[in-house]
């Protein structure tokens, strides 16, 4: 009898949890790696905590978590993939130690991050992403009694505002840059996904005391050592709003770095996959946001397909294809609805910092002809975030694209990179039991 297929899943959000669970249920030997302190990804962050009892989708998370634990799949939280030192091997750093993980099938479920765009004052403490304020609140930042402006773009804004409102914050306004007409068109396409429409309506009801304006965006943030107020505009009128926090993200961008490092083909800024989520690299699958920003339902079905396909259950995987196609259309509709308006390119001035790691201003970047020249001359994108924040911004501002990823994927210790003194990381049972 041959040994069980080693399936490694990177990213323990919905897509990764579904993929790992299903592959383990099919008899594969599964390791699920995630750099966060606990599984759940961004949408299910801290869902194992007491305070998450009221959260939407809690039951779905609990069901998947229970099923994952029963499946025999091993979840290793706090583990960052930093390199692929040889074929079919990932190098992982955890608690300051490193170890290598060998795979027969690899499922990339690295999710998405918020897109940030530079505007005057965006480097002030207190200016954060929209999902970021939610994540920090879930990680213990008290927001009760704080005045928060929510702005940017995407379906996340309403969800974040509703969450912060439930947590006792005062929402001083939700400002969505997309024009009202685009949102109306999106709503019209949601007949195929009525629960999404219902969820949106529910959030609006929870936020009925707060103003919601589409076609408005943040022009600048003001404050001395930290945020004190923001100025919002619709291109004609302007309003200044005093606040403690600005939660501002411009929809999401996929985390492509691992897929790029593995050599997977990228098309139109997304990981290209076939009908069963396999990338251009044999044995490497991709599921969830890196194949198109579509949210929870798309991530789950793609994770299920990838898990089945990695285990060799292709016909079962193919049966889920119609649902995946429907959710992919939804993702494309989201992209259209929340496309960035041209006015946002003009928010930053010559003095505005674009690359926050290296403090490179827009004026310095405008003197460069290409992204490569900018990296060489200004160090734009060369700091510890490795262009994850300024990359999507310079793509929007100047059309520069980050075509490849280089190891290490995150700043790593020298002995990790050199491969010295490996830490034989036993798979501790406690790693699989983050829930009470």
């Amino acid at each position: 009898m041959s040994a069980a297929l080693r399936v490694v899943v990177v990213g323990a959000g919905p897509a990764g949890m579904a993929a790992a669970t299903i592959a383990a249920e099919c008899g594969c030997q599964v390791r699920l790696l995630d750099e966060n302190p606990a599984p759940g990804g961004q949408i299910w962050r801290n869902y194992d905590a007491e305070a998450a009892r009221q959260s939407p989708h809690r039951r779905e998370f609990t069901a998947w978590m229970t099923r994952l634990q029963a499946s025999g799949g091993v979840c290793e939280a706090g583990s960052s993939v930093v390199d692929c030192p040889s074929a079919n091997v990932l190098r992982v750093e955890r608690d300051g130690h490193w170890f290598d993980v060998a795979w027969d099938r690899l499922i990339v479920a690295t999710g998405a991050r918020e897109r940030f765009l530079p505007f005057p004052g965006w480097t002030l403490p207190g200016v954060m992403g929209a999902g970021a304020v939610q994540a920090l609140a879930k990680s213990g930042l008290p927001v009760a009694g704080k005045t928060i402006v929510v702005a940017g773009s995407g379906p996340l804004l309403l969800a974040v505002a509703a969450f912060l409102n439930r947590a006792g914050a005062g929402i001083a306004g939700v400002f969505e840059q997309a024009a009202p007409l685009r949102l109306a068109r999106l709503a019209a396409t949601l007949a195929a996904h009525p629960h999404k429409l219902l969820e949106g309506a529910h959030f609006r009801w929870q936020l009925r005391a707060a103003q919601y304006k589409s076609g408005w965006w943040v022009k600048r943030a003001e404050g001395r050592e930290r945020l004190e107020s923001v100025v919002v505009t619709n291109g004609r009128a302007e309003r200044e709003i005093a606040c403690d926090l600005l939660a501002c993200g411009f929809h999401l961008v996929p985390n492509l770095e691992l897929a790029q490092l593995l050599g997977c083909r990228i098309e139109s800024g997304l990981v290209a996959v076939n009908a069963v989520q396999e990338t251009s690299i044999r044995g490497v699958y991709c599921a969830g946001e890196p194949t198109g920003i579509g949210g929870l339902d798309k991530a789950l079905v793609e994770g299920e397909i990838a898990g089945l396909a990695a285990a060799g259950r292709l016909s079962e995987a193919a049966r889920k294809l119609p649902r995946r196609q429907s959710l992919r259309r939804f993702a494309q509709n989201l992209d259209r609805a929340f496309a960035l308006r041209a006015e946002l390119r003009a928010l930053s001035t010559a003095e505005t910092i674009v690359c926050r790691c290296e403090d490179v201003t827009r004026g310095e970047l405008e003197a460069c002809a290409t992204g490569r020249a900018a990296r060489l001359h200004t160090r734009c994108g060369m700091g510890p975030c490795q262009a994850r924040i300024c990359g999507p911004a310079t793509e929007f501002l100047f059309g520069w694209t980050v075509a490849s990823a280089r190891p290490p994927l995150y700043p790593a210790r020298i002995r990790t990179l050199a491969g010295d003194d490996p830490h034989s990381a036993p798979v501790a049972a406690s790693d699989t039991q983050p829930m009470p």
Partner: protein
Amino acid sequence: VLHSDRHSQPNSRAFAIIVNGRAVDATDAMSVAAALMRAGIPCRTSVRGEPRAALCAMGICFECAATVDGVPLCRTCQVPCREGMEIVTA
């Protein structure tokens, strides 16, 4: 000390962490970045000398990077507080 926080963190345990030599309130349900922001302490000083605090809160941006128990460049949004933990912001 953390009376107002108990509502959102019903079963958390309160203690102090040491930030730049000074005691700062925290709980075991807080990330280090959350404890720093709650106390109004920036996580780092930028190349040009600006104070910076958490931006993405999901381990991507490194704006919340600080030295934790002697380990430099830790993404503090990903590090849960532990009693007596020593943080140095630079």
